[in-house]
């Protein structure tokens, strides 16, 4: 039953992607409620899935890589719903849906759902550490999405090739502002997650700690270099995308290491 909910949620995100692609192919990109409603419905179904899983497990449903990916996809959708409307970046949905879809389809296709026979003993610090870290990942993912939007808009302005999407994308300063705020938001959450990790009573593998600190240093370096104006906005956008790709691959490693340990 719970996997079915996830499949429906994934189909909702697919619908949002199809709507966007159809608009782009017709060269008449239009801001659409369909995209927002598809994502909203997908988010509701994801929430229902996580809720069922959580009840079944008796803990926050992030006990294996499958659940971590779904929780991350849910976090991205959550932050999009909050940020996208607050900063009038509703077009972010067109860019967010493919990322969420990719995460969920990976979770569904790969044989990584091993939770049925797996139970974790209640550990509030561990649950807080894991969930807050994944929500931070969601913010980093949205910063990556804002970075992609920035680069698309900047590329159009540089090459003078203005597609119909140009008129719907926000101005560069707005995108850059959203990107840096998301980076700070993610960084603060991630720092809280990292600190709370030291309060977890069970010993954590040193590789897991080292990789987590590496991600923290990576994002800290991006924010610091921007604060000191060492890098131009376009490079910050590129770094956001590279950093998230690295963070995502390290998340995989962390989980892999965690389970092997």
């Amino acid at each position, binding site marked *: 039953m719970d996997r079915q909910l996830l499949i429906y949620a994934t189909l909702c995100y697919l619908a949002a992607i199809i709507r966007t692609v159809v608009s782009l192919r017709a060269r008449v990109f239009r801001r659409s409620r369909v995209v927002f409603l598809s994502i909203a419905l997908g988010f509701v179904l994801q929430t229902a899935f996580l809720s069922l899983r959580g009840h079944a497990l008796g803990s926050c449903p992030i006990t294996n890589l499958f659940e971590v990916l779904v929780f991350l996809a849910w976090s991205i959708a959550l932050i999009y719903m909050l940020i996208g409307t607050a900063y009038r970046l509703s077009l972010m949905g067109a860019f967010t849906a493919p990322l969420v879809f990719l995460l969920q389809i990976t979770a569904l296709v790969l044989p990584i759902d091993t939770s049925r026979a797996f139970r974790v003993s209640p550990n509030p610090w561990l649950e807080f550490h894991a969930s807050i870290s994944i929500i931070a990942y969601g913010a980093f993912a949205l910063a990556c999405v804002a970075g992609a939007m920035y680069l698309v808009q900047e590329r159009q302005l540089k090459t003078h090739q*203005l597609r119909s999407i140009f008129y719907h994308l926000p*101005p560069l300063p707005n995108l850059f502002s959203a990107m840096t705020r998301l980076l700070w938001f993610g960084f603060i959450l991630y720092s809280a997650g990292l600190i709370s990790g030291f309060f977890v009573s069970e010993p954590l593998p040193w590789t897991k700690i080292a990789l987590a600190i590496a991600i923290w240093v990576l994002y800290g370096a991006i924010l610091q270099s921007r604060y000191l104006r060492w890098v131009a906005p376009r490079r910050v956008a590129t770094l956001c995308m590279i950093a998230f790709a690295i963070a995502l691959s390290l998340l995989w490693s962390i989980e892999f290491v965690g389970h092997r340990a």
Partner: protein
Amino acid sequence: MNLFCFGLNHRTAPIEARERFVGHAQTQVLLRDLGCHEVLLLTTCNRVEIYAAADRSILSEHLAQSLRIDGGSSSKEDLDAFYRMENAECARHLFRVASGLDSMVVGETEILGQAKRAYESARASGSAGPLLHRLCQRAFRVAKHVRSKTQVTRGPVSVGSVAVDLAGKIFGDLRGLKVLVLGAGETSEKTLRALASRGVSDLRVSNRTPARAEELANQMEGIAVPFATWLEQCREIDILISSTAAEAHLLTPPLLVPVLRDRADRPLFIIDIAVPRDVAPEVNELDGVYLYDIDSLQEIASESLELRRQQLVAAEAIIDEHVVDFQKYLVRVDTGTRPTSDCPTGVSGTLRTSES
């Protein structure tokens, strides 16, 4: 009841002819004397049109005469410039006009505001009755529908509006931006005006001939700066509009790179209108610099116009639907089955009253 439209526009008459038929204070009185129960006069720089309802057909000569400002007699050539449409075709015409499809620049939206003001004026004076009310409200609805369902109003179609749109995407808010005009030509002046209309208030003009710079600066409420300091100005400004008669590039990457170091990541938008170009194309490759020459700007404007034209079919289809619907309403009016509840507040009497 005969609903008709009578007028001329930029396609049917030159400006000299349009100037003679702009209507005057007595036009509505004259039209009522001719037998029009309801009258609306739409006058813009590109068109003069009467929308009216009458029991009988009124001669075009008389209608033209009611618009003539000098009271003189109209020649056959004058009358040939007028068009006349009745009932459903009259509705179609107003729907097209309000949607901007009949405008000189397809899809322009100013005409909708002008049509609304014309209607408000007719309503306030009591010359618009239920039929014109229904027609106008439908026309405004059609225009909104066309605007939201098609891309016919999308994209800038002049060099000035392209510059404004690009500046909006590069800087977000245009207020507080600093603009330097290098060389005071006509296009740069128009571009400057377009930017000023969107809130840019710090305007600087630099020209080899200081008097010309002073003149334009005074016109635009800006300041003239010595030509020798224009590169120094680039440390402060956000937008550079260049249109000098220089034969070689004035601005090249080696000249600009030291300037950019002092700009702390602030983007620089360069509009090079000069032919030959004032700014080396390689400047566009520098981080944070967005260079557009006249060809790029015109190409964007042309693409927008082409996109608007492509949308015409979809827009006309929307209008067709509304015309069919309005035609049914006209039939109901003729057969006396029209509901009388659609009178706007302030419009006195029902159709029957206005017909009597």
